[in-house]
């Protein structure tokens, strides 16, 4: 598929998810989550070389995106900057509503196995989120392992369902993991409330690491991830150019963030 086709496909699917998830009452109180185009790209790529008709393919991708959208929305229920109780209530309901929609889309195509795979992914995501929340007994390696699963398991289960290569699963895992780490570093530097760093700090209790130490730890994991991605780019020459472009972009994000943070005196 040409680069343009991918871009158009991502654009169309984004619109489709927006349209499907739209509810007039939500729109008054709940700011919609940003639809992650990288996820659409990976989901689309997972279905390449299959003989699934386009409409069915689009439905599966939309369903997976709605499942992810539901998870994202529920993550926002506990945000501190909620403006009203109604906003909180509607965020809970919006997440539940999107879950119903993803199930509904897959039930419409009678793909019971995919329902099972996505349900399994969501189960694992919530287990790992609780794990992250109660970190303190663990260590930074376990913490990062949980983060990686939360970020990518929905896509890797989807990928696995359509029998795509496991090498491609590693690419998804490393890419989304690196993206998450870089976002969290950016958020932290911007002074935003950050459960990620609070939970990571808990791994080192009773020692209370400084923010710069935690950032260093993240950066170490980000570097490992970046190197793995570079290797994969070499070993997966058939990657579409849009995927290569995104890999290069995330590499530059990594470089941009590499300048050391000035430690407060």
């Amino acid at each position, binding site marked *: 598929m040409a680069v343009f086709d991918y871009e158009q496909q991502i654009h169309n699917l984004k619109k489709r998810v927006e349209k499907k998830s739209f*509810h007039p009452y939500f729109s008054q109180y709940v700011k919609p989550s940003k639809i992650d185009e990288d996820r659409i790209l990976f989901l689309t790529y997972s279905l390449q070389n299959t003989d699934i008709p386009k409409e069915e393919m689009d439905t599966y991708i939309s369903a997976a995106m709605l499942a992810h959208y539901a998870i994202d929305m529920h993550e926002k229920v506990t945000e501190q900057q909620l403006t009203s109780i109604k906003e909180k209530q*509607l965020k*809970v*309901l919006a997440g539940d*509503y999107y879950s119903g929609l993803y199930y*509904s889309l897959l039930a419409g195509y009678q793909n019971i196995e995919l329902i099972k795979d996505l349900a*399994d992914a*969501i189960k694992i995501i919530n*287990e790992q989120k609780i794990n992250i929340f109660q970190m303190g007994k663990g260590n930074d390696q376990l913490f990062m392992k949980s983060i990686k699963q939360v970020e990518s398991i929905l896509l890797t289960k989807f990928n696995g369902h359509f029998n795509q290569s496991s090498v491609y699963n590693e690419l998804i895992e490393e890419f989304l993991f690196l993206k998450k780490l870089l976002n969290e570093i950016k958020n932290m530097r911007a002074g935003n409330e950050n459960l990620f760093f609070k939970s990571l700090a808990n791994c080192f209790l009773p020692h209370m690491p400084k923010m710069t130490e935690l950032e260093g730890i993240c950066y170490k994991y980000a570097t490992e991830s970046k190197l793995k991605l570079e290797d994969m780019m070499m070993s997966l020459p058939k990657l579409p150019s849009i995927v290569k472009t995104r890999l290069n972009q995330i590499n530059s994000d990594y470089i941009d963030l590499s300048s050391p943070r000035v430690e407060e005196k």
Partner: protein
Amino acid sequence: MKLNLINSPLKADLELIEKELEKSIHSDIDLLQEASIQLLKAGGKRIRPIFVLLCAKFGTYDIHNVKNTAIALELIHMASLVHDDVIDEADLRRGRPTISYTWNDRVAMYTGDYMLARSLDYMTNIEDPMAHRILAKAIVEVCKGEIEQIKDKYRFDQNIRDYLRRIKRKTALLIAVSCELGAVSAGADEKTYRILYRFGYCIGMSYQIIDDILDFTATEETLGKPAGEDLRQGNITLPALYAMEDTQLRERIFKIRENIDTKEMEQIITHIKNSDAIEKSYDLSQKYLNKALVLLNDLPANPAKKMLQDIAKYIGKRKY
């Protein structure tokens, strides 16, 4: 009459469901396991699994197959309760601390999502695609009902039709679908599962109306919250709608807001209880129950039918 007595012929299968429910929420993550067990142990009437099992008796009953539907529906119900407690910022559920109170909203959200995922996982053991379409549609509709409920809060100019539409989605639908899916999972014929859907719908409507009556008439000890709490929170239920037919009471109800003076609220509740609103509400509930019983006439006589009739009668008499 207690529900557990009239269901004694199902005892063994319900015990199996109870064990399976516990198994279904098992997690290696301690906190998640603890939160889920807290909710499970809080009990509940297990009315949805009971309907699934009874309605499956109208087809080819196989507990090892139909249990999947029963577990799935109870887990969906439990997941919705956990999320409802976040929505209502409730500290207690059935007299016990809620998950959001014991831990926090974050744990409650994760636990609810975990339970919904487990529910769908169980449901995938049912291969009939129609069963999935029915359940998926019901989940979406239930959410729409909850959204309507929030939208209609403190909207005192609503009518009985608004209320009935809301409780259909909020409660009756999942009970109707429990009946329908029990029959579908057991391969019952179309006429049978359609009748059972209608039966469940009528039972669900009656059940919710009685719940709304009890919110006014039951004691705080039984309810686990002060009487009239629904109205104070802006949820306009059937007794309040009937009470508003009295112009004076209507004016006072119209002024209710979350920060209403406790004495004024107590007086309004007393007025509602002393008006004919409660009796009228019982009458409507009874009409739904009678309709449910009439629907059963078209089904073959068997022990399950007798138990469905008993449940309908129990619901009409329940006091908590």
